[in-house]
């Protein structure tokens, strides 16, 4: 059974296909409004999430399907000690497809092995979050019209930021990409991501701690939040959380065509004064995420022979 756990589970051709479907959904929503009639998406969220769960649910409703939810892990059988595998097998009896978020890394992989229906990883700890990357890719495509020949700045927590790792992985497949990695020393991109996704493909990159000096050459600036939940030590979190705060002043040397992205939620790393700047794309990303989730649900249900 085909599941999507990591963005690398999808080939470049499949990514292009998903983007094509998403664009078609945007242009012809009625064509898709009943396509999943009678089908059920189960959202299994073992840790809190508002936007991702609602995005999946909205996606399924807009495809004409229904949603069954486990909204609170504390009231589920998981709190009684049920394994992820057993939960996945059980839910396979009720639903046609699963979207799952879990605090433990690898949990979605375990669920996909056990389930008899497709599983979409909606985030497994600090590991993977492929549908956020799909949202990011559609946003880049709609803003830039291409994936090649882009200088992409990634700023903030590049160590624990799973969306950053996945986006680097996805973009590294295209020609003419340059990465500018902007982070404090403690939150630098892990060496294995650099080795496997950047160096192995001879992709040019710059590593810096200075956001403002990097700004003029960027086509895309991808800001991230320093995530409290990824730190074992509160002191480290407090020391690093305000490393980069994007303000209008810092954008004065930026290109007019810059696209400012953020996986959200933000805390204070992008000033709200930037929200009205036409270069701000982060709320467009949210909407694009829903369209890409619709496209992915459709693809997996079609491959499973469900629709």
């Amino acid at each position, binding site marked *: 059974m085909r599941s999507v756990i990591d963005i690398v589970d999808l080939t470049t051709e499949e990514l292009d296909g998903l983007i094509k479907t998403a664009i078609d959904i945007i242009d012809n929503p009625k064509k898709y409004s009943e396509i999943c009639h009678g089908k059920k998406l189960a959202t299994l969220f073992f840790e809190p999430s508002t936007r991702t769960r609602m995005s999946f649910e909205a996606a399924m409703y807009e495809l004409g399907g229904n949603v069954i939810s486990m909204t609170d892990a504390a009231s589920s059988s998981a709190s009684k000690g049920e394994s992820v595998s057993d939960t996945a097998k059980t839910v396979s009896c009720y639903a046609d497809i699963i979207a799952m978020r879990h605090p433990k890394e690898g*949990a979605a992989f375990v669920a996909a092995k056990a389930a008899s229906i497709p599983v979409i990883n909606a985030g497994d700890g600090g590991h993977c979050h492929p549908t956020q990357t799909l949202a990011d890719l559609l946003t880049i495509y709609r803003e830039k019209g291409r994936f090649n020949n882009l200088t992409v700045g990634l700023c903030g927590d590049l160590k624990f930021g799973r969306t950053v790792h996945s986006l680097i992985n996805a973009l590294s497949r295209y020609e003419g990409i340059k990465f500018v990695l902007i982070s404090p020393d403690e939150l630098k991109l892990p060496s294995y991501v650099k080795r496997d996704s950047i160096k192995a493909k001879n992709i040019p990159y710059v590593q810096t701690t200075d956001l403002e000096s990097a700004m003029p050459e960027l086509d895309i600036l991808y800001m991230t939040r320093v995530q409290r939940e990824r730190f074992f030590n509160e002191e480290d979190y407090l020391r690093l959380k305000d490393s980069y705060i994007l303000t209008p002043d810092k954008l004065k040397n930026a290109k007019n065509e810059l696209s400012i992205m953020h996986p959200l939620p933000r805390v204070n790393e992008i000033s709200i004064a930037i929200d009205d700047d036409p270069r701000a794309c982060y709320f467009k990303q949210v909407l694009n995420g829903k369209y890409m989730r619709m496209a992915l649900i459709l693809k997996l249900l079609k491959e499973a022979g469900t629709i």
Partner: protein
Amino acid sequence: MNIDSIQNGVVIDHIAAGCGMKLFNLLGLDGLDASVAIIKNVQSKKMGKKDIIKIDADIDLNLDVIGYVDPDATVNIIKNGVLTEKMSIDMPETLVNVIKCKNPRCITSCEQELDQIFRLSDRANKEYRCLYCETKAK
């Protein structure tokens, strides 16, 4: 230093110096009811120093474990005091239930019944990563 030669058993030779004890532990040889000798820092023309393990019992060893600890080690099978087979070892593509993932965020840290599976991610650097969370084996 004299160690008796064995009649029926296995000699793991050319183990990188310092890796003998790790291999002994991972192979679970402490639970074996037979004579086992770990010889450390043996002079070797080829390697300078090496470790050797001699097992005086005709047992099946998990070659994946040996390949993980030291793929350059050799395994010699002794029968009736004669060397009957000399096996060279390769790094296994997958390691199952040999080592444990140390990442406290990994699903295997809370679901104990899951197999501990590691995949060879970088042959040149002898690097293995957890199949679930992709954390590097330590």
